[in-house]
């Protein structure tokens, strides 16, 4: 059985808020969450924030309900792109475990699906999707292993946004046939989180089949993480790390890195 993940928790400067959301996520049964840093480039050159180290948030990560492992916290970057110049692969992106793009125009959506080196493409939830999903780019994204992200918090907050979320999601399902979808929270408060089984059920409302809906909170999320890893490494085959200083550390490090790989693989 695959574990549940929520790959979108909006980053906030208030640390207490973040801890309470992550604690709720662990209590609801999510094994992995990703803190989402959203940037909206205004100027040509936009600073990319450095992700905070996840170990700053907790001394000891809360235990996942029903499991004896602590919750895993990742960092995710979302770029709201309304112009082609907004997405430029720089080394700053490599600091994040996941990179997502939210294309505002059809041209950018096409580019994001076919060429951009990203893991996730976000779908509009707070407004009507300004363009139609075409089969060619969506299929291209599915072939490349890029996933589409629908966040459900907007649907909880407001009834018109709920309409947009469901409408956009159903439009997308028509084209992608339920493949390569992840459903994430986008929560800013702990009360906006919902349990993984609730979301699998919500997937049915979005037009997914039962199996696809469950995959949207579990196995598909795992694929996203693996895709994120291949981006940081050379196709996931070779990757570089700093050479440890002492021999002892080296011996200790190697099995640890291997373990980390088999864990996620």
């Amino acid at each position, binding site marked *: 059985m695959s574990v549940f993940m929520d790959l979108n928790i909006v980053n906030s400067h208030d640390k207490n808020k973040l801890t309470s959301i992550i604690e709720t996520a662990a209590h609801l049964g999510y094994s992995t969450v990703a803190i989402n840093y959203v940037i909206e480039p205004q100027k040509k050159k936009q600073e990319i924030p450095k992700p905070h180290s996840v170990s700053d948030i907790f001394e000891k990560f809360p235990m996942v309900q029903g499991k004896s492992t602590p919750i895993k916290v990742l960092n995710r970057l979302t770029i709201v792109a309304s112009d082609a110049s907004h997405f430029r692969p720089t080394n700053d992106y490599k600091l994040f475990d996941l990179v997502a793009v939210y294309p505002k125009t059809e041209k950018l959506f096409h580019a994001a699906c076919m060429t951009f080196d990203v893991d996730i493409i976000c779908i509009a939830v707070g407004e009507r999707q300004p363009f139609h999903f075409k089969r060619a780019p969506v299929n291209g994204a599915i072939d490349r292993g890029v996933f589409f992200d629908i966040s459900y918090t907007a649907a*909880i907050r407001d*009834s018109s946004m709920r309409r947009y979320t469901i409408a956009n999601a159903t439009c997308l399902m028509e084209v992608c046939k339920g493949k390569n979808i992840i459903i994430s929270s986008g929560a800013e408060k702990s009360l*906006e*989180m919902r349990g993984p*089984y609730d979301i699998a059920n919500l997937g049915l*409302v979005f037009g997914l089949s039962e199996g696809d809906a469950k995959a949207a909170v579990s196995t598909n999320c795992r694929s996203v993480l693996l895709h994120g890893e291949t981006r940081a490494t050379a196709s996931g085959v070779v990757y570089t790390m700093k050479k440890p200083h002492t021999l002892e550390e080296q011996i200790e490090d190697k099995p640890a890195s291997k373990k980390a790989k088999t864990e996620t693989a």
Partner: protein
Amino acid sequence: MEEPTTFERHVYKNASVYHYMKISLDLENGKRSFSDAQFKQLIISALKELYGEVGAAFPFDLLKFDPSSLKAILRVYNKGLVKLWSALTLLGSYQNEACAFRVIQVSPFLLALSGNSRELQFGESLTS
């Protein structure tokens, strides 16, 4: 030699026409007093918001309600489970106060709700 025990496997298909849900209501400002009628009205309004009049007319029962912990057991026809569940999921506020329904357990058998394997507390000897 004794013959090995043979097992017989029974698979019940559509054994029950109902599904039972154990839910609890989380409110932003802590607990407040609810009557069972108010609680059911809240669920009906959630159904109405998402599925309209037809959704609001859908039959389901509030079997048990504990006003102190705001936990309840619902009984619903299999057909309406997805609708009721999604309506509960997408409910975000009650009288302008943020709230959330936590679905604790869902089962076709009422007896299954008497215990929750996810909340078992093991002794020190078992976990260490």
